[in-house]
């Protein structure tokens, strides 16, 4: 049985996901969370195997939450679930430690497959390409690029810190910075400029 926690701010999406996952054999859909605030209690209470995490959430977005979820011991697998710009989310999702990335337009069969694979510890994501890496590289500071390289090779933070000769907290901060620089824009209710 794969125990699944859904995090999505839209009621239609939460209800749809819950219904679809309940109907599939081998899945247990736990109570859904709507945002960061009720995510932590739900996480502690239910101890899921997989978190299906919306990218675009009010307050902290899916990437920030994913980083925090993956710091837990033991951490559940995280499948980022996005309705927006999937391929450009590949690198920030990797940096945030997500196990998978899937578009909300995928049919249920693909979603089931992705959940089973991340639950087994596999990675599910669009392939990395030179073009994506090149664009990410030009948006990041040069000093962060070695960390990006190591993160894409799944190097643990402690090892990165040892290679670079800095504190793990510094590496962690730099990863946060990279994630915020590579964020994918989603429409906002009002322009801040």
């Amino acid at each position, binding site marked *: 049985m794969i125990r699944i926690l859904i995090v999505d701010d*839209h009621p*239609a*999406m939460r*209800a*749809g*996901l819950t*219904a*679809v996952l309940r*109907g*599939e054999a081998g899945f247990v859909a736990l109570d859904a969370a709507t945002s960061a605030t009720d995510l932590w209690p739900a996480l502690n209470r239910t101890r899921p195997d997989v978190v299906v995490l919306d990218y*675009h959430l009010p307050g902290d977005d899916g990437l920030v939450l994913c980083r925090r979820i993956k710091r837990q011991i033991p951490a559940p697998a995280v499948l980022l679930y996005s*309705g*927006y710009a*999937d*391929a450009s989310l590949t690198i920030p999702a990797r940096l945030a430690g997500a196990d*998978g*990335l*899937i*578009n*909300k*337009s*995928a*049919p*249920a*069969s*693909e*979603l089931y*497959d*992705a959940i089973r*694979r991340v639950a087994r510890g596999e990675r*599910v*994501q*669009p*392939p990395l*390409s*030179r*073009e*994506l890496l*090149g*664009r990410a590289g*030009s948006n990041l500071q040069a000093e962060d690029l070695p960390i990006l390289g190591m993160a894409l090779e799944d190097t643990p933070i402690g090892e990165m810190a040892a290679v670079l000769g800095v504190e793990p907290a510094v590496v962690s901060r730099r990863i946060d910075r990279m994630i915020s620089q590579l964020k994918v824009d*989603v*429409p*906002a*209710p*009002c*322009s801040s400029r």
Partner: protein
Amino acid sequence: MTSRWMALLLMTRLLAAAVAVLLLVVHRVTAHDPALIAAVIAYTAVSLVVLSRVERLQLAPVAWLLDGVAVLALVGASEDWRSPFYVLMVTALILPATGLGFTRALAWGIAFTSAYLGVAVYTDLDADTLESSIRLETIATHLMVPLVVVLALAYAADVLERLRGERLRSERLAVQSERQRIAWELHDSAKQRVHAAHLVLSALQGQVSGQQAELVGHALSELRSAGADMDTSVAELRTPLEGRSVERLLGERVAELAPASDAQITLTGTVGELPAHIAAHTYRIGAEALTNAVRHGAAQRVRVTLARNPSTATIEVVDDGRGLPAIRRPGSNGLRSMRARADTIGAQLSIGPGDDGRGTRVTLTLPTRPQEESSHA
């Protein structure tokens, strides 16, 4: 903007002409007053009619110059610089002062005043005038008035112009924030519901068969099209194509992709004019195909060919890369959204191997009406 100043010219010049005629009737100014009355009435009528009818003359320096020469000639003909035509003369400064921008308007005013001084000397400005303090003060005032008028008008025109720019800017900002709001609502609410409906319905696939499966498939395809429509609308609302042609937009996309890629990208041809929402979908399908070729194909060469025939327009993206993967890439949405967009605009999308069986060829064929008709639409 000029219509406002034309109205000012119309009012002041009519008033000035009336004053001139009245002065000429009441006081005997010269030996040929009746001729002057006829001349000022004729010139006022002709100048105002011509300037109001032919709008581009309102901004033509040649027209201003001729007008200036004419009014100065009237002043000269009255044989006195304290002329009954003095106010009429000043009205000739309205259009240049408001049409030239501040500095050049000031230069025009100085030149005009100097010309007036010349006319004054030609009439009866002489040593006597300069010795009588009252007459000296009068000539000084007569010289100052045109300068003050030009200064005031040029300043007003400048301020109005700035206000107009400011208003346009705030209108644009209001439109922008409204677009942001609509995009957000589409993406944040309507799109989420469509995703949810698609997901739930797709869970039925494989559990139903025969005609029911067909119906479910049909509904799913409609939902995908709705999603694609919303994606294009959201993209349109956030970065509108603003009437730019499909080939120009694809050219910009090529310029964006080229530096981050090894592939040589060529873009040729045109799809001609398309209705706005079809152009938006067409561009986004073409851009997706191009991005896929560059991003995933490991291609050396990518060729984008656009063509317009009497009843169809086509976009073909051919690369010599590694071709389509045998199994779908997990989490990728590109092909799905291209197909959904093509369905939405009634176009055919075919995806297959490229030249000599290597790489990928994506062809989009969309039906069009003949170009003459569509440009009228």
